């Protein structure tokens, strides 16, 4: 806590950021044993672990980390729809990573500089996320500018996830952020990387049929319920047990 920031972290904001990290970490954890190369087993697990660490700090600001992760229903989760999207092929995972880590990097840099209740976490996270962003960028370049097949897969993946990117810039209560400025910097950064990867910025709306900000309001996509069922099943099968 700093003297200039609010005394306590907003629970809404802690849940939004914490759920993003928790859910994306889970999705990346699904890659274990399935990655395209041994180096990627290490890299994806590394990113998943960073995100899980962030999630644990953030959820603990809002309550008990395990109760929040394992005992909430789908409608109570506040993560972006982007992070819950299934892994798909490696290109989809990389596209999701670039969209999200670029956002997270800009957001945490701003939160770290702001000195509010999230500043200590954000200062640590921004260093981790810089690596996540670099990883996604390096793969975007290789897949975009690799073979014809990889280019086409990468193009399709960026297009498929485009509709989930608008939600990232809906204001979150308790976060003192200049959202329109964040959005334009995000767009500039993603456009620049895609350009170097010989890919073009996808066309079409950046929000789906649901209103923008749906995930933040607890409206999720179908695969998310199945993800939670798997994640929560064991914990819920033994009420009150310690692990």
């Amino acid at each position, binding site marked *: 806590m700093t003297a200039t920031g609010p005394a306590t972290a907003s629970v809404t904001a802690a849940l939004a950021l914490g759920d993003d990290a928790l859910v994306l970490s889970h999705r990346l954890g699904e890659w274990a044993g*399935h990655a395209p*190369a041994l180096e990627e087993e290490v890299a994806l697990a590394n990113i998943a672990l960073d995100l*899980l660490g962030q999630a644990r700090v953030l959820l603990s600001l809002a309550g008990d980390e395990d109760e929040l992760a394992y005992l909430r229903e789908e409608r109570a989760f506040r993560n972006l729809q982007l992070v819950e999207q299934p892994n798909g092929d490696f290109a989809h995972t990389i596209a999701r990573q670039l969209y999200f880590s670029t956002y997270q990097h800009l957001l945490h840099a701003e939160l770290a500089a702001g000195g509010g209740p999230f500043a200590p976490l954000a200062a640590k996270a921004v260093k981790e996320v810089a690596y996540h962003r670099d990883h996604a960028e390096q793969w975007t370049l290789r897949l975009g500018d690799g073979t014809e097949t990889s280019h086409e897969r990468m193009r399709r993946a960026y297009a498929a996830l485009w509709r989930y990117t608008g939600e990232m810039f809906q204001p979150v209560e308790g976060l003192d952020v200049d959202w329109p400025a964040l959005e334009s910097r995000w767009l500039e950064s993603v456009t620049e990387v895609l350009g170097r990867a010989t890919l073009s910025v996808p066309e079409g709306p950046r929000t789906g049929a649901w209103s923008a900000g749906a995930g933040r309001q607890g409206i999720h996509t179908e695969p998310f319920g199945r993800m939670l069922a798997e994640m929560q099943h064991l914990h819920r099968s033994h009420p009150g047990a310690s692990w």
Partner: protein
Amino acid sequence: MATAAAQRTARPQADGAAAREPADYQRVFDAAVAADERIEPRDWMPDAYRATLVRQIAQHAHSEIIGMQPEANWITRAPSLRRKAILMAKVQDEAGHGLYLYSAAETLGTGRDELLDKLHSGRQKYSSIFNYPTLTWADVGAIGWLVDGAAITNQVPLCRCSYGPYARAMVRICKEESFHQRQGYELLLALSKGTPEQHAMAQDAVDRWWWPSLMMFGPPDDESQHSAQSMAWKIKRHSNDELRQRFVDICVPQAESLGLTLPDPDLTWNEERGHYDFGPIDWSEFWDVLKGNGPCNEQRLTQRKRAHDEGAWVREAAAAYAAKHTGGAEAAAHETTGAERA
């Protein structure tokens, strides 16, 4: 040390001019092994020594990467965030071990692609223990405590193996394995002291993993195909049965502390030997699983091959990109391949 260094410098190197007779090479190699010196990649070594090491290191590397599967099976269901973080880190370590070991094999002139191809086509094996399924969360604990415990017992002596790169990789691997073993023990302890259902889950897992863990040390000494030569070369330092006994002696008091029993009615302290006696191992099961008839042989290899095949386009793209962007003659050669592919 100065003497040892001088001798090493004097040792003929595999790519050096053939200034000496093969018999001299063999004599210098034998002397180095006898003096407990390390054989390094550029040193001359007998073909059979090289082949034995490649076979053993490859099997070890394959075991690390196949061994990711039974544990990764529980990452998405880990019952607390703390346990999930520990398990992800552990599975990640195993991928890292695979990397060190494939690199160690590469110093002997055999690349990762070739070894993976042999794994995928069934020409090289991985440890049979990973052909057993992880049926409950407690299996994650049992694997850490028993399987990693057995692996450490096997691997600590390998830190003194005569081949330098393998020995050095093992130093690092053993440090991490010891963390894995402790987390498994601690996981089982939490279950054993937890609810009756959790305790039963822990006991069930130990009951299923105990005997397969004892089989990890390989067949009895009188039936072990490669042991004698490997011991003479100081690749292996102790016999299968010695290591198995050491493991049993370590586990019995640990099981007591855990409040769990080991599924062997013959397990008793033998005052005279200063060791625990244990019941007969069902070697027919061992050979059967080794031949491919274990519960998960098919599943493990299929998943490994699928991950490899589905990742082919990614690896090809990375190679094509490198060829386009690194320049030079080598890149030009790759570029041709890339163009053909496109």
